[in-house]
C-alpha cells in the first residue's frame, strides 16, 4: 500500500520554495513513511524519528530530485531505508546488559527493539507466527523481504534501496524465505539453526 506518484506538480512547487506544497508532500507521505520505517525497525519511537529525519533530508535536498529517475515516494523510500539501516547499526553499539549476553559472553547480533512489536500490532494465528519468525530472520534478508512483499518492488529497485546488485537482492530474498520456512516448520530447531548460521556468517564476514 504505497502512495501514488501523481504529485509532480506539488513537487515542482515545493522545489520553488512553496511551503504549502512542502506541507502537502509531507502530509501525503508521512503515514507511509512511518509504516515502512516501523516494519524495518520494529519500534514506533525509532520509526517516527527516522521518518522525520528522512523528510528533513529530502526537503533540504529537493533541488537534487530528478522526476525522470523515479517518483518522489521512490526517492523518499530510498532515503528512509538507508536511515533505518544506519539506525539499526547504531543500536548495536556496546552498552549491553550482562543479562543479555549469551553463554559465550557475546552480545546478540541483532538486539531487540525497545518496544515489543507483538504488543503494538494486532495479529492473530498464522500472521502472528509469521511476524514473530520475521523478527528472527537476519536484518539484511528481512529488509529485502519487506521491500519485496510489502512494497512490491522488483529486484532492481530493491538493489537500489539496499545498495547491492540485483542478484544480491534476489539472493537475500531467497535466504530470507528459507530462514522463515525453517523457523515456521520447527520453531525451536529452526531458531537454533538460524542463530548458529548467522553467527557463522558473521564470523566469516569479520
Amino acid at each position, binding site marked *: 500500500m504505497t502512495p501514488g506518484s501523481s504529485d509532480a506538480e506539488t513537487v515542482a512547487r515545493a522545489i520553488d520554495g512553496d511551503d504549502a506544497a512542502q506541507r502537502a508532500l509531507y502530509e501525503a507521505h508521512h503515514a507511509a513513511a512511518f509504516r515502512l520505517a*516501523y516494519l524495518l525497525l520494529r519500534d514506533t519511537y525509532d520509526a517516527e524519528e527516522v521518518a522525520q529525519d528522512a523528510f528533513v533530508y529530502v526537503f533540504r535536498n529537493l533541488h537534487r530530485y530528478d522526476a525522470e529517475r523515479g517518483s518522489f515516494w521512490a526517492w523518499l523510500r530510498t532515503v528512509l531505508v538507508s536511515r533505518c539501516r544506519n539506525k539499526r547499526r547504531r543500536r548495536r553499539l556496546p552498552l549491553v546488559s550482562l543479562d543479555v549476553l549469551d553463554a559465550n559472553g557475546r552480545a546478540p547480533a541483532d538486539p531487540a527493539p525497545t518496544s515489543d512489536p507483538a504488543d503494538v500490532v494486532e495479529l492473530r494465528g498464522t500472521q502472528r507466527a509469521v511476524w514473530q519468525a520475521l523478527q528472527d530472520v537476519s536484518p539484511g534478508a528481512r529488509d529485502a523481504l519487506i521491500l519485496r512483499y510489502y512494497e512490491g518492488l522488483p529486484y532492481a529497485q530493491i538493489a537500489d534501496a539496499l545498495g547491492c546488485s540485483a542478484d544480491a537482492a534476489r539472493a537475500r530474498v531467497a535466504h530470507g524465505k528459507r530462514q522463515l520456512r525453517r523457523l515456521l516448520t520447527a520453531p525451536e530447531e529452526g531458531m537454533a539453526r538460524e542463530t548458529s548460521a548467522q553467527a557463522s556468517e558473521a564470523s566469516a564476514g569479520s
Partner: protein
Amino acid sequence: MSELHPQEIELAGHDGEDAGGDLAQHLRWCARCRSVVADYAWLESEVAATLDAAADTVPVPRPRWHALQQRLSAGRRRERVGRRVSALASVALACCLMLSASPVLGVGVSVRTLPPAAVFAPAPHTASVTGEHAALLATPTPAIPSGDSTPAATPAFMLPPTPPQLQ
C-alpha cells in the same frame, strides 16, 4: 539438474517469474520439489498479508509539520553561517598564499624601512704637532694678502673675515 534435486536455496529463489530451463523441467516431473516450491509460494502470500496487517494496525503518530519546519529553518541558518565562515577563511587563505609565494614568483614587495640613524663624522682630530712635521701635518691656512684690493676667496673651512667697523 534433471537427475539431481536442486538445493533448497534455488527452490526458495524460484518466484515463478523466470524459472531456468533446467529447474522448470525438473519441477515438471519431481513432486517433492514442486511441494517445496508450493510451500514457498504459500509463505510469500503469508508474508505479504502479515506485513500489510502489521502496517495497517500499527498506530501512526500525527504529522509534526511545525517541528519539521523548525528543523529546516535551523538548518538554513547553520548553512548561512557556515557559508560566511568559509568565505572569510578562503580570503584569509588566499592572502597567506600570496604573501608566502611572493618571493618565489618574483613579485616585488615594497617594505618601508626606517631612515638610518644619523651618523656624524668624527670631529677632526687636533693634536699638538711640533717641529718640522708641523708644516706637513698642519691644516693649511691661506695667507692673508697685503694690499691686494681683491679679497681672497674664502676657503670652505674658514669663515669670511668680519668687515671693519667705520668710525
